């Protein structure tokens, strides 16, 4: 059963004030940060979203958490519609999802001690019957931090430790879904592994579903079941992680794979270098939005946007998918 | 950029209108008949009646405000209750004295303060820097009227280097300049300190930025790094501050004009209060407020124009 189901989601931002739009004669002073996005997350599974900066991946996460309004589409959590929730329903929703933020130290309130930080969800949701001290110890133990850490302030933590505190807080209310935005950003490779192992362990122990956002494809394959590749707010390819790695269909996916070289000087690399840079959301390219950088572009690509196609659970948005 | 200009000027006009409304309500908030208050001790029933007529006191409040604005727009700020001359004439007659005082002070302060700040920033933590730092703080904190009193006491009364009172003979430029020195010094002194501290701080901040490290890493001569790469960025905040500084200088000018018995807006307000000549008081406050809004608006526009990042984003 799926915990989260997102259908045809669209998130828009205003880029010009009404006055500016009027003066510049712009009838549509909005940009689409997320467009036509559909996916679902199964219970106890991990869904990973991969995209470069500006692809709209964090926006999508915020929209799912309803920290940003969505313009169109539906977000269903355990069958109930998130976009139309009342305030009290929303409180209940917030109890069942939790977020891990990009900046491990910056997402912790600087003047609070770790002990109060990780038990804050209990206070916010009025769960006063719990023994907060004991809960704090339990959570710290769960993420592998010694109990005396509850007396520390965020700035006294290393990146990896702060990240663990973030995981502890995310686990406090035993959520159904954890949304993790770049869980390994800013961490050294030796620490990256620790955090990914922790996330895997948490999932194995508690059966929680995860929605992970990252720009690093290498991180994805060891933690996720399903993966989507996002570009300019749209999914270009989505499917089971193993399939995606073994047989990428979209040229962008295979370029991303090639862009993460392994540390082997003799490795034979199928180099697929992309031209240019990500275009601005302010002027989306016509047709297939990837055509400006695609090494295999054809005239057809510039005319119309390809639909998501493919077999079973593996879909891609390309007229000329890479053959096996 | 055009949109920004329109917006910023529009905001300025809006602020002036709000300020006028606020002044208008201040008169009405005070208990009693506004006409009687405005007329002060000379209020005869006939005068009150004609004043009420002029202000439209018999009409509803919104209409009164509109009338107030309409009069203002025509440059009519009412009549002086004592001489019965138009307030506008009186106020604009005094304006040049205040303007010349303020501009002299701010230009002088900028000419001394900015190089001083640069020097301190470049020779950071040297003895000269520390001494300048302490002196600057002392200058900033010295209230303008105290400086005015001391300069009057020392340079005019005891040493007799400069004239003590007035603004000098009309037409005699040298005399006018001599009369300008002490008052301008009195209100400019704290700005020398303030600007030097400001320039020093923003200079040090800019010097710590990555692109300065880049410029040095490419071996650019230090002179070029400081004066072309750092100073251009470091003076940006000064422009804004000088605009806001006009308001402080207008305030400080009140004291100095009184201490040196120099004609100007501040002296005018002070004298009008003692004769309860309220229309003149309100007119002067209004004009100085407009002056202040104009100067902050201009400095914001200059600032936006100087910084290519802002210029492009507007």
């Amino acid at each position, binding site marked *: 059963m799926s915990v989260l189901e997102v259908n045809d989601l669209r998130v828009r931002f205003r880029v010009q004030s009404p006055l500016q739009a009027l003066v510049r004669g712009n009838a549509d002073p909005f940009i689409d940060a997320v467009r036509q996005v559909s996916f679902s997350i199964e219970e106890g599974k991990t869904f990973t979203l991969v995209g470069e900066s500006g692809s709209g991946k964090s926006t999508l996460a915020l929209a799912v*958490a309803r*920290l940003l309004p969505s313009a169109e589409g539906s977000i269903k959590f355990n069958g109930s519609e998130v976009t139309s929730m009342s305030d009290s329903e929303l409180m209940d929703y*917030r109890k069942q999802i*939790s*977020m891990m*933020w*990009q*900046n491990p130290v*910056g*997402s*912790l*309130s*600087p003047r*609070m001690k770790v002990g109060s930080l990780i038990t*804050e*969800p209990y206070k*916010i*949701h009025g769960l006063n019957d719990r023994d907060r001290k004991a809960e704090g110890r339990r959570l710290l133990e769960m993420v592998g931090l010694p109990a005396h850490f509850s007396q520390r302030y965020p700035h006294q933590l290393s990146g990896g430790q702060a990240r663990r505190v973030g995981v502890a807080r995310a686990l406090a209310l035993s959520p159904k879904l954890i949304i993790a935005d770049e869980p390994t950003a800013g961490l050294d490779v030796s620490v990256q592994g620790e955090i990914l192992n922790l996330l895997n362990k948490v999932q194995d122990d508690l059966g929680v579903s995860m929605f992970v956002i990252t720009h690093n494809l290498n991180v994805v394959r060891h933690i996720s079941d399903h993966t989507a590749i996002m570009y300019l707010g749209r999914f270009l390819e989505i499917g089971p992680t193993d399939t995606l790695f073994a047989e990428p269909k979209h040229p962008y996916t295979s370029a991303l794979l090639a862009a993460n070289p392994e540390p082997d000087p003799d490795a034979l690399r199928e180099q697929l270098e992309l031209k240019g840079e990500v275009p601005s959301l302010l002027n989306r390219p016509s047709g297939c939005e990837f055509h400006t950088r695609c090494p295999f572009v054809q005239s057809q690509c510039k005319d119309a946007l390809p639909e998501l196609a493919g077999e079973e659970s593996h879909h891609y948005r390309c007229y000329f998918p890479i053959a096996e | 950029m055009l949109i920004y200009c329109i917006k910023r000027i529009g*905001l300025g006009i*809006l*602020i*002036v209108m*709000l300020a006028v409304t*606020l*002044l208008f309500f*201040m008169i009405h908030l*005070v208990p009693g008949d506004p006409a009687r*208050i405005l007329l002060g001790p000379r209020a005869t029933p006939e005068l009150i009646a004609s004043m009420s007529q002029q202000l439209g006191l018999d009409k509803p409040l919104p209409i009164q405000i509109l009338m107030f604005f309409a009069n203002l727009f025509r440059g009519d700020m009412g009549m002086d209750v004592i001489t019965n001359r138009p307030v506008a004439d009186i106020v604009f007659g005094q304006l040049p004295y205040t303007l010349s005082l303020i501009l002299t002070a701010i230009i002088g302060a900028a000419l001394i303060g900015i190089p001083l700040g640069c020097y301190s920033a470049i020779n950071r933590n040297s003895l000269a820097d520390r001494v300048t730092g302490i002196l600057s*703080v002392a200058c*900033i*904190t*010295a*209230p*303008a*009227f*105290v400086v005015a*009193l*001391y300069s009057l*006491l020392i340079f005019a*009364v005891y040493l007799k280097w400069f004239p003590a009172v007035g603004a000098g003979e009309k037409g005699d430029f040298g005399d006018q300049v001599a009369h300008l020195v002490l008052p301008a010094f009195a209100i400019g002194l704290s700005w020398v300190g303030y600007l030097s501290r400001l320039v020093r*701080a*923003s200079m*040090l901040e800019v010097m710590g930025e990555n692109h300065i490290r880049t410029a040095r890493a490419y071996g650019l001569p230090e002179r070029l790094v400081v004066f072309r790469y750092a100073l251009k960025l470091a003076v940006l905040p000064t422009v804004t501050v000088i605009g806001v500084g006009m*308001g*402080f200088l207008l*305030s400080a000018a*009140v*004291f100095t004009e009184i201490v040196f018995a120099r004609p100007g807006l501040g002296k005018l*307000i*002070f004298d009008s*209060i003692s004769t*309860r000549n*309220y229309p003149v*008081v309100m007119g*002067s*406050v209004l004009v*100085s*407020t407009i002056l*202040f809004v104009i100067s*902050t608006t201009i400095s914001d526009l200059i600032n936006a124009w100087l910084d290519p990042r802002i210029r492009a984003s507007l």
Partner: protein
Amino acid sequence: MLQAIKRICGDPLGLVGLFLVALMVLSAVLASVIAPYDPIALNIIDRLQGPSFKHLLGTDQLGRDLFSRVLFGGQVALKIALISISIALCIGVVLGMIAGFGPRWLDNIIMLLFDTIRSFPTVMFALATVALVGPSLSTVVVIIVITSIPTYGRVVRTQTLSIKSNEYIQAELAMGASTFRILSMHLLPNVVGPLFILASMDIPTVIALEAGLSFLGMGVKPPTPSWGSILNDGYNLIRNTPWPIIAGSIPLVLVTLGFTFLGESLRDLIDPKLRKSL
């Protein structure tokens, strides 16, 4: 706290500031004990004297002891400064947080209001107000409160806006924390530090404004002693004796210096980022 005092003592200017401020506060609080004379008692025989052991700072044109008047004047100045700054601080914090955290339109309205108040040159505004309602101690307080609110409000708003964009506020929102909780638990503690420093550096400005208004006869009503009115007496007597000017200005200058040095020292202590640039 103890460490803070230690650090200030390590900074010579901060130490001087602390000493001057302590001196001012003590002499103001103990004015009635220290003062050798009644500050408003007339003594025409001893008028216009220079400093002597009998009258440490001399006497004014009515023969009142200037040293005693300076002590009590300090009391008045400190009282006005503390009362008005506390009131302005409270209102400024509330308005600033509302502007920074609330909806855009409310922010615009509050900022427009702040800009309008700031567009009056302070002293001109004060004179206009005094002209309408008459000079008194409470008028001075009201004027200072009104003109200071925008300063604090703007600082709080800027801080709120920058803190609001931090991830930890987003994190609180995502956990479902109420606006009140975010404002009181997460914003306020991070805003007050810089604000207190700003306020402490504002005390000299306020004292100078009070003295200035009293100097013009638009502040505290005579015969209440005020540094400003002592200076006014001195101005009128400037061709006869310099002593009232000196007596009125020395405490004023020392106190403004004291609070500024202390404030800068505190700022460097609390905000290491600023320390780097000073």
